């Protein structure tokens, strides 16, 4: 048998299998946990890349789990879009894992095996969501990923418990809503396979059950992707989660929920179904536009850098929602391009923030003054990530905006064009607030703790020998090699993604969505 169509098993199965093995081996030999986890992610990344190559060379293919044919069995669909998103998820996770090893093992206490097991479980869930062609299977993977994410957030300590608990409650509601929606679709069509469901929905006049199902599905996924006004769980979870976790969750987790949303448009609901009696496309568009503005404005008001980045994520996810809401092939492709771009940019920014936390133990922007020259690589990467977020050409962020604006013009949606373009200015406001502090203000002799959070941060920074009694910017040094190298690679990726965006759009995304 031709070995290549077995690739989906490596993308999803390898992390799933090793999420069980790693904790066990980790108890026996501590260091094996990290190495094994990294190797597993590398296998998944290579398998994703090979799948993408195969799809581009030949055509999309599907894999029948256990050999059962689709209507009965579960089908994994590898097309341009799912392969591309898998490549993005696995490669970003790989870099983040390398970079966060130092504090992951400290934060995870004496059981790094459990930590890495959860990370692999998360990854298995995320890649599973991306490749599955089955509505119920998507729910299973969504819950696998979410449960792993809740557990990872809990590692952050006392405050993270509360934030994580809230995340758990809201996330479970989201999952339940989605499941309910799937139930209605099953009533209406009698199938759980996405492609078959689409065919059946297309053939028959739309029933009330299918409409209600669609609404539930989108409400559930909207919660998972933190679409305004369903975003309330996200800032707390990101702020209090351990640095190693939020650098992993922020770039990929919500993005995958957004991908699932997009998948519903592409593969499940026929064109026109979501803009007629149930105007979900319009709702997404409007909520997205509100979210872009709200997220940026809220981000500008934050003094904790992680919280600021969290609100920024809400804004960027709303940007993706706008693309889905517009619904034209160009808009969908732009939204998908932004999934990749934002994963690289947000990973850069969160990792830089984590690296700062490692070295100086501070997260309030006003305390980061003077850090630029002392941590040149970390802050340089942060600056490049910021420029990409603002969307200055030729970085990645520019081209998502560029295509989205074109899509808006094409559809005659002038409000979209205006909001998409002026969101750059709003983004510039909060990111330059940080850059101004970091590069243009002199270092303070000691941090001023306005809130109590900073004391928390310094408290968990203090026990380490390389830090003096108080966390002070003046004594900061560049992060160690294994921390900054992945960071620099990610920052470079934001520029490279910008330069090669046309290739991605032309060969991968546009064929994938049309």
């Amino acid at each position: 048998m031709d070995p290549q169509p077995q690739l989906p098993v490596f993308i999803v199965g390898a992390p799933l299998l090793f999420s069980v093995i790693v904790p066990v081996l980790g108890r026996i030999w501590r260091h094996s946990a990290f190495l094994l986890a990294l190797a597993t992610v590398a296998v998944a990344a290579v398998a994703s890349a090979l799948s993408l190559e195969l799809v581009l060379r030949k055509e999309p293919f599907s894999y029948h789990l256990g050999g059962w044919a689709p209507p009965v069995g579960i089908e994994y669909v590898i097309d341009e879009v799912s392969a591309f998103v898998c490549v993005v998820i696995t490669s970003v996770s790989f870099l983040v894992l390398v970079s966060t090893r130092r504090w992951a093992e400290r934060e995870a206490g004496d059981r790094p095996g459990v930590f890495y097991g959860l990370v692999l479980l998360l990854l298995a869930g995320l890649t599973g969501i991306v490749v599955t062609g089955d509505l119920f299977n998507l729910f299973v993977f969504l819950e696998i990923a979410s449960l792993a994410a809740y557990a990872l957030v809990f590692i952050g300590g006392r405050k993270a418990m509360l934030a994580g608990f809230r995340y758990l409650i809201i996330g479970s509601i989201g999952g339940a809503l989605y499941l309910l929606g799937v139930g209605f679709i099953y009533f209406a069509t009698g199938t759980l396979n996405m492609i078959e469901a689409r065919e059946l929905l297309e053939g028959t006049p739309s029933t009330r059950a299918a409409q209600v199902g669609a609404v539930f599905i989108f409400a559930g996924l909207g919660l998972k992707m933190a679409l305004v006004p369903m975003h309330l769980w996200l800032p707390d979870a990101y702020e209090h989660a351990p640095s190693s976790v939020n650098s992993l969750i922020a770039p990929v987790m919500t993005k995958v929920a957004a991908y699932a949303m997009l998948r519903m448009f592409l593969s499940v609901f026929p064109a026109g179904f979501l803009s007629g009696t149930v105007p979900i496309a319009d709702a997404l568009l409007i909520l997205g536009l509100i979210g872009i503005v709200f997220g940026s404005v809220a981000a500008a008001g934050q003094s904790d850098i992680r919280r600021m980045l969290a609100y920024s994520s809400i804004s960027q996810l709303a940007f993706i929602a706008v693309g889905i809401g517009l619904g034209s092939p160009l808009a969908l492709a732009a939204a998908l391009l932004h999934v990749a771009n934002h994963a690289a940019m947000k990973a850069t920014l969160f990792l830089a923030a984590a690296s700062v936390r490692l070295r100086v133990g501070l997260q309030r922007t006003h305390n980061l003054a003077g850090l630029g020259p002392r941590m040149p690589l970390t802050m340089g990467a942060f600056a490049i990530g910021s420029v990409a977020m603002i969307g200055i050409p030729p970085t990645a962020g520019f081209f998502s905006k560029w295509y989205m604006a074109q899509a808006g013009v094409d559809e005659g949606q002038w409000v979209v064009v205006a909001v998409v373009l002026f969101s750059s200015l709003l983004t510039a406001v909060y990111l330059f607030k940080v850059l101004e502090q970091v590069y243009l203000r002199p270092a303070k002799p000691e941090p001023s703790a306005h809130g109590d959070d900073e004391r928390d941060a310094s408290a968990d920074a203090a026990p380490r020998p390389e830090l003096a009694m108080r966390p002070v910017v003046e004594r900061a040094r560049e992060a160690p090699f294994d921390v900054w190298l992945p960071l620099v690679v990610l920052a470079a990726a934001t520029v490279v993604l910008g330069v090669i965006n046309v290739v991605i759009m032309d060969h991968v995304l546009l064929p994938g969505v049309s």
Partner: protein
Amino acid sequence: MSGTVVSGLPLLAVLVPTVAALLAALTTGRWPNLRDVWATVAGIAMVAITVILLVETLDGHIHRTVLLELSLGINSPGINIALRADPAGMIFGLLVSVLWVLAGVYAVGYMRGEHERKQTRFFVAFALSIAAAAGVALAENLLTFILFYELLSLFTYPLVTHRETETALVAGRKYLAYTLSGGIMLIGAAAWLHVLGVDTTFRAGGFLEGVNLDSVTQWALFALLAGGVGVKAAVMPLHSWLPSAMVAPTPVSALLHAVAVVKAGVFGMVRVGVFVFGAALLDDMGAWLVLAIMSAATLIIASILALRHDNLKRRLAYSTISHLSYIVLGVALIGPLALTGALLHIVGHGVTKITLFFVAGAIHVRTHKENVSELDGIGRQMPVTMGSFALASLSMVGIPPFILFTSKWYLGWGAVEVGQQAFLIVYLVSGLLAAGYLFPIVIRAFLRSSPDHTRYGEADIRMVAPIALTAVLALVWGIAPDLPLGFFELASTVADAAFPPSVALAGVTP
């Protein structure tokens, strides 16, 4: 006669300053002298490249470098990033490279004299800004133009905020807010044009000529494009970032206000007016009149505001705003003579205004004086510096045979040519106002006696030499604009291409 040659030279013109920036960043710390040499070496290399390009361009061989040419499978011209050394771009490119050499030398003297901190960041950002300005000059199409236009905003930000004081940070925020908004307008217009399927390669006579658009679309595109470049060209009411940005060190003010940023704005206006819309379309729409009235108003108001300011650099800033509108008005008048004058004015104002700013910086380094009212008797103590200031002032006012006389002559003649005598009067009045805000400085400096007994000498040779050279250039180019860089020939080539005889007769003459 004119052919296109594929070569790496236009790219090299952009790469040379970029490499200089990298080298400056790498040789920081132990070897400050080596770091500062790079700018000069690279500047001379860049001049050499642009001169080669000039010779080729004048021979009709247009060099172009394609960096990225990819088409999408959808209704859109795709992404096309290319550089091209056409005559209009060469005018700006030559100006940038020649003045970079001089400003580079001057900047070393100034930064050392003022004991500025973080000099490496300064020199790196300076060189990168030059690279971006060269990219703006040589951009072949709208997207490439936007790419470098945005980078220019970004790279000049650390220069504006260099002092790191509260005022500098506020000025920096204002600067970013204005320039990024301008960029956004351009991006919006470009995205729109791409959706319409228009090939946005700059073409003399306008790439929109013959494209069938309704008048609302035309006006909206005009507002976005002219507004986008109008921010950097400081056309009122989009000008207020410029006086605020005066908080930057003087070499930056010289760079912003004579070489890179504002000239990128007015050059962009030339691109928008002549190469995007073209004379016929501007005339049909009546858009020229809007632009002409706004720039004429800016011209007069800024000159009057310049009279009121005692701070020398602020006075020069308002003078800059006024002179930029000379150029915008020249574009708006859509005639071959006015366009020739406008292009010459880009060169003339560049070399003249940089002299004035250089002098302001030299005075500050030597005496720490910033206000006009403190400059009594300074001419006798710094004769070469203030002598150059006097020469440059004569040029600014438009006294023959300085270069700004030549350009104003063509601008005025151009106004008459298209039957708009009212704008000739605007030009003349503004010339008088320029005399009003510049001559008193010269008179104070030379005819009054110094109130204190401190004896100041000339500044460092690295500052005085560029000052004297730019002042002399303003004179030399006034007598012979083609010597040695062929500015006049380039300008008239552009004007000929933009106004072929038939168009000039049909659409423009009264």
